[in-house]
């Protein structure tokens, strides 16, 4: 064995040593529980008394109306909130990218500020802002936009809207920062050339800005989708899933099945795999959509 070989071997071992703790941690606290969840999803029983029950949990999932409600609520949040937030974030960042704009850093900091709050803290603040006698109703009535207070939290329709408004408030600035930093990397001469060719702001936005920002838009839409599919803190602290189950999300349903009702860990694990599958499917779709456009 020559010295080069043994040095390489030593380096290889050193490499493994450096990554060992992280590998053990991620396997123990992510991958092992994922496998456990899969095994659990084939078991039934109350609390710790679990027995193998084949596909019974999956059969139950197919006819579970609460699951269906939680699933459709989660999809409503996703379909409305994610596009609204991304378009709003893009729009604001394009406005902020103008170097002749005054008070730029004030606007940027202000719009990013919601990101420093914890999900629980801002949820409680929003719960009170949107109370029947809260500031939002007082404001809207003061401007004579509405005559009677809107029942933001207790009406099934408005409660969903409240959740969507809250999440948009919290995360738009976060996504905006990603767009803003990408915009700053775009060479301004591209826009100059487009202007000379007679392209208006609208055309410039869709023909230059959006295509160049595509990777970052894809990134934010995937992270936002994953985040929205897991929504829990806001629902728990603004509406508790109510009225009825009108705002309940899948994560909250899993929590209720495990820790609120009589604990049914097996079925909870089955429901949890629906989120895993959704995340995988939606991520693949988003990658596909982004990839196809690139070719087209």
């Amino acid at each position: 064995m020559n010295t080069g070989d043994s040095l390489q071997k030593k380096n290889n071992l050193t490499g493994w040593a450096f990554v060992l703790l992280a590998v053990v941690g991620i396997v123990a606290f992510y991958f092992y529980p994922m496998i456990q969840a899969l095994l659990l999803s084939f078991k039934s029983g109350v609390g710790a008394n679990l027995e193998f029950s084949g596909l019974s949990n999956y059969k139950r999932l197919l006819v579970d109306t609460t699951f269906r409600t939680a699933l459709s609520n989660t999809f409503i949040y996703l379909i409305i909130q994610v596009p609204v937030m991304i378009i709003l974030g893009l729009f604001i960042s394009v406005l902020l990218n103008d170097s002749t704009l005054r008070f730029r850093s004030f606007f940027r900091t202000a719009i990013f500020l919601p990101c420093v709050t914890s999900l629980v803290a801002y949820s409680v603040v929003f719960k009170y802002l949107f109370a029947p006698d809260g500031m939002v109703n007082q404001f809207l009535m003061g401007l004579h936009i509405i005559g009677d207070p809107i029942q933001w939290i207790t009406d099934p329709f408005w409660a969903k809207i409240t959740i969507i408004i809250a999440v948009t408030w919290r995360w738009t600035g976060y996504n905006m920062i990603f767009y803003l930093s990408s915009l700053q990397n775009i060479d301004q001469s591209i826009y100059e050339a487009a202007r000379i060719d007679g392209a208006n702001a609208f055309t410039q936005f869709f023909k230059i800005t959006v295509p160049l920002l595509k990777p970052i838009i894809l990134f934010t839409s995937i992270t936002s989708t994953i985040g929205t599919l897991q929504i829990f803190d806001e629902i728990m602290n603004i509406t508790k899933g109510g009225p009825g189950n009108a705002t309940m999300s899948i994560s909250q349903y899993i929590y209720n099945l495990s820790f609120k009702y009589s604990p049914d860990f097996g079925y909870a694990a089955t429901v949890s795999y629906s989120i895993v599958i959704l995340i995988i499917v939606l991520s693949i779709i988003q990658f596909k959509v982004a990839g196809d456009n690139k070719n087209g």
Partner: protein
Amino acid sequence: MAKAKAKRIFTYVFLTIVAFVSIFPFFWMLVSSTNASVDVTKGRLLPGSAFIDNFNKLIDSTNLVQALGNSAIISVISTLLALFIGSMAGYGFEVYRTKSRDVVFNILLLSMMIPFAAIMVPLYRMFATISGVAPVIGINTMAAVILPTIATAFLIFFFRQNTKMFPKDLLEAGRIDGLSELGIFLKIYMPTMKTTYAAAAIITFMSSWNNYLWPLIVLQTPDQQTIPLLISNLGAGYSPDYGVIMTAIVIATLPTAIVFFIMQKHFVAGMVGSVK
């Protein structure tokens, strides 16, 4: 040129509205923490003189100090461990790069796609089992809150990306000086990468300080409460004392807001750097 002027006016009006909507909840929360509950309900938007009163009520009716202490201990230990483990791995994957380790790295990245809701039940059962054997790291312990947060694919990825910019000459220089491989990491890499550590520390500290779902599951006694649990419980009351609750929220938000304002540049650079 009238069109350009109209566009300019629209920009300012629009951004002002968005900034107002972004700031207003903070303003309301701050003002409300200085007002008595009745005044908050009346919609008072001027600072009052009830802050001390609210604060005393908060201290008397909750174990705020203990919750702050619990949150601080958990967040600091989580951040230190996560940074150490994550940076070591990011460094290891980049500096001692082999094909097999690249495969392992990519598998670890997949864990970012795992939703917490999907693993919370098995994690809870895991710690319930540990409770029987080693109660010091089982249910109702800080260790149980900390352990699942110390190895994250995000930090490994983040440090690996930033290690690409680490001058490799320094490695050789360290070897020639007779430093061990670990010595190079501790004495050369860590001090050189200070800003990367700062950015990672902010992100990790904030997510740990604000963590809610896992502590909610694994900490079940009042004296174990962290700040988000305390606020959630206050907010769940039937006759809320708005002034007191807003005072609690202001106190809970201050640490992350201060950290954010001091380190704003690193924070933004850190987030953006992580996706490049």
